[in-house]
């Protein structure tokens, strides 16, 4: 099981900051990263957001880097493909393999660097949000949107049941592994099947039970949650505006620039 980032978010010192402020910071970072044509902007976003996550939200550095390494395999493979296939013009270097000439052009390398920087920037924005804001806080934001109630209901209940089932799944897995259920490929496959089946049947029964129990407590298809007022502090506002200004200025000055 991968780390559930929500664990950190619940204990985060930034948890009780204004949700809309956090969301606008993250959305701004994501959009700036995606629409920029120079790798510098997403790179700057990555540095600022990582700093905020490590310094303000007090996330352990080693854990944070482990998280950033998670998408690495997908991103590195894709970036290498882009570097080799994208872009025309003179090759910076090339070699022959099985009769084909593979080479990296200037445009290809620039594109690959840009994509790498964008992914880094985007991931650090996302991590900032997920490490400081538990899903519970985001539900009140989702309530303010015009999404249908049934959709939100399902999302909220799903959130709760993810934890219930993770608990069940981890318990079963633990019990299986102390009985050598994962000693080799064949047994682990068999154990995995049993775990999946049990989870399915258990979740089904749980679903029926929860409906009965909620109905007997006058459930009418709407869960209401309390939305606290959390004013934005002046210092937070200034810091955010400085960050926005910095990113916009970098965006403006690096419009046509390329690294290589």
């Amino acid at each position, binding site marked *: 099981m991968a*780390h*559930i*980032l*929500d664990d950190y978010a619940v204990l985060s010192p930034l948890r009780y900051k204004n949700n809309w402020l956090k969301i606008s910071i993250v959305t701004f970072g*994501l959009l700036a*990263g*995606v629409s920029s044509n120079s790798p510098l902007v*997403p790179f700057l976003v990555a540095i600022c957001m990582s700093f905020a996550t490590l310094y303000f939200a007090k996330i352990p550095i080693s854990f944070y880097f482990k998280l950033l390494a*998670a*998408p690495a395999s*997908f*991103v590195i493979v*894709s970036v290498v*493909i882009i570097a080799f*296939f*994208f*872009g*025309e013009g003179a090759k910076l270097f090339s070699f022959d393999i099985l009769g084909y000439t593979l080479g990296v*052009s200037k445009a*290809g390398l620039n*594109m690959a660097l840009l*994509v790498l920087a*964008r*992914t880094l920037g*985007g*991931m650090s924005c*996302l991590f900032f*949000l*997920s490490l400081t804001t538990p*899903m519970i806080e*985001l539900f009140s934001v989702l309530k303010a949107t015009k999404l*249908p109630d*049934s*959709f939100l*209901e*399902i999302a*909220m209940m*799903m*959130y709760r*049941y*993810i934890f219930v*089932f*993770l608990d069940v799944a981890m318990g079963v*897995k633990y019990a299986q592994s102390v009985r050598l259920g994962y000693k080799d*490929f064949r047994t682990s*496959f068999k154990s*995995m*099947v049993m*775990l*999946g*089946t049990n*989870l*399915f*049947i258990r*979740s089904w029964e749980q*679903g029926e039970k*929860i*409906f009965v129990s*909620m109905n007997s407590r006058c459930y009418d*298809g709407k869960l209401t949650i309390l939305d606290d007022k959390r004013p934005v502090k002046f210092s937070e506002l200034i810091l955010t505006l400085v960050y926005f200004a910095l990113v916009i200025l970098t965006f403006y000055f690096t419009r046509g620039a390329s690294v290589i």
Partner: protein
Amino acid sequence: MHIFEGFLPSPWWQLWFVFSIPVILYGMYKLNKLVSARRDVIPLLAVAGAFIFVLSSLKLPSVTGSSSHPTGTGMAAILFGPGITAVLGVIVLLYQAIFLAHGGITTLGANSASMAIIGPAVAYAFYKAASKAGINFYLNVFLATAIADWVTYVVTSVQLAVAFPAAEGGILASFTAFATIFAATQVPLAIMEGALTALIMKYVVQIKSDVLIDLNVLSTSAVAKLKEAME
């Protein structure tokens, strides 16, 4: 096959949202209709969504030692149909992006298109067609799940290829490059997941077959036949 945050450049991530949003809205409309007719489905669907999430976060035992996760979408498509799977899939993808840092927000449109919409829809169509043709139920589940995975991965390769066409040979050349390299992990993974899902279904038929009848996955006579074959 999640495309990570920031990976798709500007016109493409918006275009995939344009593709996904109407389908998801349609799914929500269907869902709303279902919910107003039968209110008890809300908790059941929520629990089903949580099941997909937990299933997709378990590590599959893998021969090469690399970690790989089942997607669970093929199974959901067989059980709940493509419309509801699309809605549940979007919520799962959103949670995966926020809890596990798999996928992202700007790429949510593209990921929904491949994992929550096109893959499950093709799997569902295959499942229905094959069960009409009278193919063995477990083989059918195995194939439908594997196909859901493969279609997902082909669509992801197409998404990457149209966003980053090769200089020589254009979209087709870069599609081939992405598809061949990802095939190394995705082809065995899909087979594993297919086998896993088929075996899970076997146990479900054995222990709690009434669920499958309730969901309209199998008819009463088909279940009786499968149970007979087991004894």
